[in-house]
């Protein structure tokens, strides 16, 4: 609007000012939503980035035969289960000679992770020739030490408010001064299952649980979804029945996800007696939940295929089925796949229905198939978020980051598929 018009009268200027103001309200509203999202991402990023590193402590270990393998059989299991605590402690005492009393020794030993003895056992069982030698071994530090080294425990807080006492901190500093403390990439986080101790916990079992659930979900929801869409768009004449199906699909899309979990609990678990807490049941529940999304997306793709395609095929003597499955469906396939992937991305982030069918257990073992007891990534996040241990805050945020990365990958793949394969009519 030209300026002279705005300044013709005070009323006009006022009306124009209102216009400018109103636009700003919109901009501010958008800015609030988006900055909230950014705030959330940065908060999670800075909390979780530390979990990708892990504090290790070097211990000079004397692998004495009398301690590890008194009978000299070199049996793998007895090597794994031998008592490595004394030799680890001896190694630590070389650096910190002061700790000789029983309570001090225990506290000193607690600087190391509980997993340290298992770790040594694994190493010795793999390489029995270690016995009799003396080696410098890097073992995981306990979660408290890990947090301190990462600067997440404030030594200025009154001593009785923290689990790591001044004494422990002095010991860590001694170890650090002699170069026996380092941070390294946290492989455990990606290669192990859940654990009560934060420094030994990982997301592998949860990630595989999610993978198996999504696999089942895809195998059920994709064929069912596109065939339903094909029926409704290509075959069905408008009738009471198709109306009923349509109303059903629209309403299912609005049913709260937790209700699908209850359906799984009542029907799949209690009525059909399928195995509880497994990706099989989880996948079935997620499939029923994503089905409406896939159907609705596929229908709109089918609707966008030009009628000319069908007429041409029919005109050349193809049957209805041939027309549909040789011509229409292949053209619609990229779009339908895109819709399916987006639906599965939603399913990947879904937590509540999985809680209902018992995929909320403490799972250490890595699931090997769809009928093994498992949990899923978002459920693992929920479990860790609930845990009182401070070390799990970091892991929770890191697991969220991994989940978001998977979601982004799925979405990017869907967009790529659409760009690459979709035709414009």
């Amino acid at each position, binding site marked *: 609007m030209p300026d002279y018009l705005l300044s013709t009268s005070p009323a006009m200027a006022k*009306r*124009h000012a*209102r*216009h400018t103001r*109103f*636009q700003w*309200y*919109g*901009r*501010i*509203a*958008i800015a609030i*939503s*988006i900055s909230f*999202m950014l705030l*959330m991402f940065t*908060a*999670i990023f800075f*909390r979780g980035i530390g979990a990708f590193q892990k504090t290790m402590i070097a211990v000079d270990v004397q692998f004495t035969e009398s301690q590890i393998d008194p009978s000299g059989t070199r049996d793998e299991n007895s090597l794994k289960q031998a008592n490595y605590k004394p030799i680890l402690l001896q190694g630590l005492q070389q650096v910190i000679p002061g700790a000789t009393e029983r309570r001090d020794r225990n506290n000193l030993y607690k600087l190391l992770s509980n997993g340290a003895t298992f770790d040594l056992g694994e190493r010795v069982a793999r390489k029995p020739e270690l016995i009799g030698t003396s080696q410098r071994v890097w073992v995981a530090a306990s979660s408290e030490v890990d947090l301190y080294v990462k600067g997440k425990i404030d030594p200025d807080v009154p001593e009785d408010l923290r689990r790591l006492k001044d004494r422990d901190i002095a010991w860590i500093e001694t170890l650090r001064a002699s170069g026996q403390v380092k941070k390294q990439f946290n492989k455990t986080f990606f290669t192990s299952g859940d654990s009560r101790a934060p420094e030994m916990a990982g997301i592998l079992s949860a990630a595989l649980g999610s993978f198996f659930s999504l696999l089942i979900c895809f195998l059920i929801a994709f064929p*069912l979804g596109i*065939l*339903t869409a*094909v*029926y409704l768009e290509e*075959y069905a004449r408008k009738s009471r029945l198709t109306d*009923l*199906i349509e109303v*059903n699909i629209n*309403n*299912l899309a*609005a*049913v*709260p*996800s*937790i*209700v699908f979990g*209850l*359906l799984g609990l*009542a*029907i799949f678990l209690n009525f059909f007696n399928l195995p509880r807490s497994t990706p099989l049941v989880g996948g079935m529940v997620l499939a*029923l939940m994503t*089905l*409406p999304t896939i159907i609705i997306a596929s229908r709109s793709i089918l609707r966008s295929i030009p009628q000319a395609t069908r007429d041409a095929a029919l005109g050349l003597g193809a049957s209805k*089925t041939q027309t549909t499955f040789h011509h229409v469906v292949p053209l619609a396939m990229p779009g339908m796949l895109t819709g399916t992937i987006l639906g599965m*991305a*939603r399913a990947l*982030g*879904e*937590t*509540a229905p999985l*809680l209902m069918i*018992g995929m909320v257990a403490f799972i250490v073992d890595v699931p090997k198939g769809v009928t093994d007891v498992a949990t899923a990534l*978002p459920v693992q*996040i*929920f479990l860790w*978020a609930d845990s009182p241990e401070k070390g799990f*805050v970091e892991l929770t945020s890191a697991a*969220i980051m991994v*989940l978001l990365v998977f979601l982004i990958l799925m*979405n990017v793949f869907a967009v790529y598929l659409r760009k690459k394969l979709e035709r414009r009519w």
Partner: protein
Amino acid sequence: MSQSRDLTLRRANRRSQLREYAIQGLLIACSFVAIFTTIGIVASLAFEAIRFFGKIPITEFLFSLEWSPQTAIRADQVGASGKFGVLPLLSGTLLISFIAMSVATPLGLLSAVYLAEFAKPKTRNMIKPLLELLAGIPTVVYGFFAALVVAPIIRGMGAGAGFEISSESALAAGSVMGIMLVPFISSLSDDVINAVPQALRDASYGMGATHTETVTKVVLPAATPGIIGSLLLAVSRAIGETMIVVMAAGLAANLTANPFEAVTTMTVQIVTLLTGDQEFDSAKTLAAFAIALFLLVLTLGLNIVALRTVDKYKKKYA
């Protein structure tokens, strides 16, 4: 010769016809899964809920003001008879939904109006997917953020202002849920606003109205039914939302309208009743199904009303 060829042709025809029927049958069977799912949901919830009402009268469930589902382990235990009144849960759910909607409505509507009416196409194409990203974030992430960051901030602000706020306040869960709902409102309202015929706008400009006056006095009133529909859909989402409230709202069933207190919701109670140890026939576990049935009726009712309003609106300008 020609007769036998005729016969083969006819047989081939019959065969292909049969195949057509078979495939059509398969397709119909597939589309029945949606109906079976609905029947499954309603039947399983209703069946367990009826068993629950066999133990606890339905009038107590609907009208009692108390919720404490602890049932007696021994018959002679004191004060251990469970109280199963759904009203405190309903009030908690509505309180949190109300807070969420008072965050989401202005943000969502103003965003929608801006994107539909004022933004340049380039800005619009950039901002819209960004806003929709909010809808794609798993709710467990929102829950974690609400419990770990937002709740302490709100609590700290309360302490600064000199009054006590529960660490699991309805406000924390509700406001974070509100942000989650923004894209639901904005994208649907955006469609609705775009569906208002250009002629209405042109008429308004022709009368000398500014762009803003056109939007507030012509476009928005015309779009109101559709916008109400989109708000109702968002409310139904808020009522059924689980993870944010499980992680950030409390377990205590307080009958209160104070947003600074801890309240519990229907979904939270379903989760707490059904995770952990459970005997299947106890009133406690069955109560979860009764709540879920109530929840389903509520959300579906809202949904049907919402879709009707949007449909009617669309027909008006079609």
